[in-house]
């Protein structure tokens, strides 16, 4: 794990920008390429940095204002760096009537952040979602791609713990 993170295949900003250039080159002839390019950028950097916006605008020949407009329209794109783990509390109907709001409150208290904010250690970002299609298991929260089901406010501490411990383990490996 640690090895992968340290390899020289371009995890620094410049390396990532180079990879972005390659990605844009493969996608740019597709009709309507802007959104697939932005999706690739978001997963590459974890957010959409200013340098990337400039590059996308130039290479796709789209005005900066349009690129920015599209980024801010869709909730999956973020202009700010996000935490290693993005926690999304489902506020869909099924989860809502089963008490999702109380889970959100508990998470806010535990992490001391509001919706959309990231903890100072850059570990967790708190966000909300509108239905993950796991209504049969409501209420649910997603931490990155993991779904946690039937969550109670009292479970929150334990769930967060499993992720913050992972960080410690990773560090030891390094």
């Amino acid at each position, binding site marked *: 794990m640690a090895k992968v993170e340290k390899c020289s295949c371009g995890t620094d900003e410049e390396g990532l920008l180079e990879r972005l250039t390659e990605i844009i080159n493969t996608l740019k002839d597709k009709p309507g390429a802007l959104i697939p390019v932005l999706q690739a950028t978001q997963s590459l950097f974890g957010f959409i940095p200013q340098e990337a916006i400039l590059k996308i605008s130039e290479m796709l020949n789209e005005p900066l204002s349009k690129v920015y407009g599209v980024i801010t329209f869709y909730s999956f794109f973020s202009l700010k760096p996000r935490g290693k783990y993005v926690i999304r509390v489902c506020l869909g*109907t099924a989860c809502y009537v089963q008490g999702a709001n109380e889970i959100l409150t508990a998470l806010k208290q535990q992490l001391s952040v509001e919706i959309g904010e990231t903890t100072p250690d850059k570990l967790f970002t708190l966000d909300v979602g509108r239905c993950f299609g796991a*209504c*049969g298991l409501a209420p649910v929260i997603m931490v990155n791609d993991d*779904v946690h089901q039937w969550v109670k*406010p009292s479970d929150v501490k334990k769930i967060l713990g499993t992720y913050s411990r992972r960080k410690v383990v990773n560090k030891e490996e390094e």
Partner: protein
Amino acid sequence: MEDTIKNTHSIKNAEELNALQSKLTSSKEFNSEKIYICAGGGCIASGSMKVKDAFVKQIAESKLNGTIEVMETGCLGPCALGPVVVIGKDDTFYQSVRAQDVKDIIENHLVGGQVVPHLLHLVGDTRVAKKSELPFYKNQDKKVLRNCGKINPVKIEDYIACGGYQALSKALSSMTAETVINEVTASGLRGRGGAGFPTGTKWGFARKYQDDEKYILCNADEGDPGAFMDRSILEGDPHSVIEGMAIGAFAIGSSQGYVYVRAEYPLAVERLQIAIDQARAYGLLGHHIFGTAFNFDLEIRKGSGAFVCGEETALITSIEGNRGEPRPRPPFPAEKGLWNKPTVLNNVETFSNIPLLINQGGLKFAETGTDKSKGTKIFALAGTVNISGLVEVPVGTPLRKLVYDIGGGISTGKPYKAAQIGGPSGGCIPAEHLDVPLDYESLNKLGAIMGSGGLIVMDESSCMVDVARFFLEFVQDESCGKCVPCREGTARMKQIVDRICQGQGQMSDLDELERLAGTVTNASLCGLGQTAPNPVLSTLRHFKDEYIEHIRDKKCRTAVCKDLIVFEILDACNGCQSCKKVCPVEAIHGEKKQHHIINTDLCIRCGLCLSTCKFDAIVKY
């Protein structure tokens, strides 16, 4: 998976497809004994992959090695009972299976021939072993979900063995575009995305307009909270959607399709991509399909988290690479859609109906359902019901049957209060209308809509004013902001309902809400705004007394609306002081070992005292 693709060759005609199907159905693999493990999103979240690994490992180590296949399937339905396992040879249904139960199942059941009682489903006091005898399955009619739970969604061979791509073969070899459209029209199939527009008519319009290219789009941007049927079809039987789209493309004269899948469904995207690659490898997508002049290919476009993109013109604008804002109609997409070319957009479930419809013929298809609404409908049953999950019933089935016979009744033991159907565009159905047939017309009469099929059951503990507020917040958040009635109208409506929830409402607010709702409905640009007031109107219609209680008596009978809640410490208090210590605003007073008191003026209703008290001495009402 790569291996299977390498070894395939294009299917050039109907005979080759038939030959492949009979070869597959007579294969050892197809006829081997199977253990079906649900790999739907819900069961995976419940840990079904660990169960699968345990089965694979332990069977390999047992004497059964090589005699039984462990198969991952699409959603089996009852998400709440997951992880779900079905033993193929005797149709035994096991629920809530953990990895540590696998040893029991193998030793006692597969080897010993005795079912494992504690993993069976309980109906009353009896444990039911057979899947087909479970009330959850017995009362359903699985047509669109025919393959979900029977085939491996990432193996095209499984789909072909079960008769897959026969409908496409039939359409291309023995039908014309017109006869395909006639069959779809005759079937009475209506769009399953919510509005219920006749599919055959839509295809007919797009066929009529001539252009050098036409597009066929699949709407898999299933944004309605509480709906997960499209997700389950894409995850469980992706080829049925591809086949339906190919038939649609043939009918309207298109050679390029797009599936717009929401970003929240990574597994659906993954499985659909595998399915597309496999279909290409067999020549079922690409050039000269079945040796004819028909060319068709498909691409996935992922959504980026905007609810409005489920609206057809917004979805089109989004594929074009723009902000997903709707545009005025006419011109309708059938005339000028994607890149201004004639375009048909249908929902996942609609496409999944098509192969079935073509195979059996439109008139046969029309035998199921009601006078005006044909076929079956998939509902996502959730909320306070015992077995939440995915169910398919003939259109027109009474709501009561879904909630009680299939869903097993209310999980909390409290009385049924309402079912919310149709998401943010829909409404609530109260107890006195539990026998309403679930079809487009009957639901409209009650102020709800069929919608995409999300059905959320609520018991007495849900506040209907708060439910209305919830949906207003949702549409306010998701309104794209392009037109004023939707952007501003829903904001004002939310302001009023907020005020009512805070105990600051006036009786005149109720008239004002209805008046505003009329404006938003009539003047909004797209379906999102036009239907946004529905949750408010339907709760006002069926639960007006609750609104009045909030306004006149400053009371929320369900203790959901925070500002109207009162916390009180009962005589059972022994003065342990733990509530006093956790209260963030020092609203609790009392000496050690003496009865404590909450100062309601200071209390912020956070509920910490209630969850801290170990002696059940605090109540809220």
